[in-house]
């Protein structure tokens, strides 16, 4: 009998085109997502060397990082941003790649539109010049971020030169309490692993609490794998996955659907498969989480306190913590719930999907954003926006005082006009709290959509469970 294999092993083995003696492999890439920021130099490289795009039909491109999320009728004001978006459009036209422009209802954040269109399917290899490509692992696809040189490599050859990653399994046992969402689970996981804990690994998330998640929740978890240093995150495909995929525009059609389904059902890890690293958490121990510092591993429960650098023995870590607290304008030992906020950002490829917006709306009915707080909601795609408006969520948001905007990356990385001012403090559903990420000098606290909503109403970090 052959050795039991993990989900990762199976996808990897299926995609090896050739293997060198030292274990370096050429692996086939099934799907390639492209956005405007990390692709222009790749197309330029192709042009300079006179190479072609091997398989234009396997790629899908969208402008998301630079697009305005307010009135779009005037196009993009910022000249460099505009040129970057136009360059993508031109490159796609020249090489025959499908492109969703700003006025296309399917436009949105690259990691939201792939799943939405059925472009993302179980068992695939998927890449994008973007570290949060790990999101697509929620479907049981091997999906990871690459640099621009590799974007060019994939365009020219539809392959990548890689060595297999190590296998890690993170099991979240039991059931999560009410008010504890996928975002809280993944923040707790990052806190446990540390920001480099997953380096060199592909992480498979398993256990009752993971299986119980919707596809949206699974995408939130896999999205942040990179914040623990992991190359990719994976969740075994099951009925939840198949139900989500079926009927999407690019999903297999009747006739092929059954064959695909039968194959996808062979993907989950074999019983007895072994992992290089195993980590276990208990969902019942996890409270709603917030970050207090400038690394995604700087996590505390909402009932907790800002830690004290004096209690840290490692010198490098102590210095980093001091620097973080200084940047964040926080004092050691203060209660997390005493941290006042100015801004709320709900959106991003982590939490900009319809389920996230429904959670916000359910809490927002009959409540008001605190005076002085600017709370913005940026849907992940045009289709998410339409769906939310069909369900009347936009009316609830506006009545509660939220700013309801057009789809894009927006204040997740503040490359467009949406940014924090120096010293401004934000409860954000995005994935990175790095210094300056949401605007120079801006202070980011990562939270779930429910927690961001609670913060919007309280004007400080607050426990979503108190909203009842």
């Amino acid at each position, binding site marked *: 009998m052959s050795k039991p294999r993990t989900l990762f092993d199976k996808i990897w083995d299926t995609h090896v*085109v050739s293997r060198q003696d030292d274990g370096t492999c050429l692996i086939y890439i099934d799907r390639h997502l492209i956005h405007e*920021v*990390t692709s222009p130099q790749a197309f330029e490289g192709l042009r300079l060397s006179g190479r072609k795009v091997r398989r234009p039909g396997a790629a899908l491109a969208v402008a998301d990082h630079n697009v305005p999320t307010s009135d779009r009728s005037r196009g993009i004001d910022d000249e460099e941003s505009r040129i*970057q978006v136009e360059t993508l459009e031109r490159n796609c036209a020249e090489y025959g790649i499908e492109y969703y422009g700003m006025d296309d209802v399917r436009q949105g954040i690259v990691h939201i539109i792939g799943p939405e269109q059925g472009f993302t*399917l179980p068992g695939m290899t998927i890449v994008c010049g973007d570290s949060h490509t790990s999101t697509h692992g929620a479907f049981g696809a091997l999906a990871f971020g690459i640099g621009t040189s590799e974007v060019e490599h994939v365009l020219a050859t539809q*392959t990548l030169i890689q060595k297999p990653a190590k296998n890690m399994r993170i099991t979240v046992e039991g059931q999560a309490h009410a008010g504890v969402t996928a975002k809280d689970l993944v923040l707790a996981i990052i806190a446990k692993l540390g920001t480099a804990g997953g*380096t060199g690994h592909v992480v498979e998330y398993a256990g009752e609490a993971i299986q119980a998640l919707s596809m949206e929740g699974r995408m939130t978890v896999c999205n942040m794998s990179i914040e623990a240093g992991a190359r990719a995150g994976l969740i075994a495909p099951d009925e939840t996955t198949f139900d989500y995929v079926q009927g999407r525009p690019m999903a297999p059609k009747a006739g092929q659907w059954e064959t695909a389904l039968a194959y996808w059902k062979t993907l989950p890890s074999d019983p007895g498969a072994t992992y290089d690293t195993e980590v276990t958490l208990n969902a019942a121990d996890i409270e709603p989480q917030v970050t207090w510092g400038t690394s995604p591993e700087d996590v505390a429960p909402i009932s907790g306190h800002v830690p004290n650098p004096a209690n840290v023995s490692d010198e490098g870590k102590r210095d980093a913590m001091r620097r973080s607290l200084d940047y964040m304008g926080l004092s050691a030992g203060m209660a997390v719930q005493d941290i006042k906020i100015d801004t709320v950002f709900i959106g991003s490829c982590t939490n900009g999907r319809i389920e996230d917006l429904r959670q916000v709306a359910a809490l927002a009915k009959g409540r008001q954003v605190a005076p002085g707080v600017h709370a913005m909601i940026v849907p992940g795609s045009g289709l998410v926006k339409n769906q939310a408006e069909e369900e009347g969520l936009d009316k609830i948001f506006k009545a509660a005082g939220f700013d309801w905007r057009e789809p894009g990356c927006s204040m997740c990385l503040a490359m467009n006009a949406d940014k924090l001012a120096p010293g401004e403090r934000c409860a954000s559903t995005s994935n990175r709290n790095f210094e300056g990420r949401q605007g120079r000098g801006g202070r980011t606290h990562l939270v779930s959509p429910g927690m961001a909503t609670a913060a919007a109403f309280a004007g400080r970090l607050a426990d979503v469970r108190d909203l009842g």
Partner: protein
Amino acid sequence: MDKFTTLRGVAAPLPMVNVDTDKIIPKQFLKTIARTGLSKGLFYEMRFDEDGKPKEGFVLDQPAYKNAQILVAGDNFGCGSSREHAPWALLDAGIRCIVSTGFADIFYNNCFKNGILPIVLPKAQVDMLMDDAGRGANAILSIDLKDQVITGPDGGTISFEVDPFRKHCLLNGLDDIGLTLEKADKIDDYEAKQNHSQPWLAG
């Protein structure tokens, strides 16, 4: 890509841990469609104030380190975003080698694609090199990729590991894409096989 064989140059110490690629080059410099000239954004927020005026004191701006070609960095260097603008900016500023206890995967990979050698060493050795790098203009390290050895200012040596295939590409300045295209028939075979076994992926 430029070859990397041997390098003798000033090493600059950057002991901060978890230096993310947003910190190496912030987003306002990602709007370019070129890959050159990015050193102006390198470590921007540590080097310039909000009005764009130079701040004093960042290591690469000190006279002794102006021409540094090597960076001795804290743990988990290059984490976060996949932006290849980070190694482009380092390269544009003259950095050809980075030593740390660990690198984030994508950044590590991106370095090799641009002729930069990232070296991973145990903490004790990185600490030693960090001390060496603290000696200003005397902080000269020699790096020999072929023999996989770093020689310190006092003549002490440290050997390092590097993946043989990556070493080969770096030593010869090889273009990955060219190498892969030599295997085009294998890729054709793979596609033919996949069209048959997973027909829903065709198209």
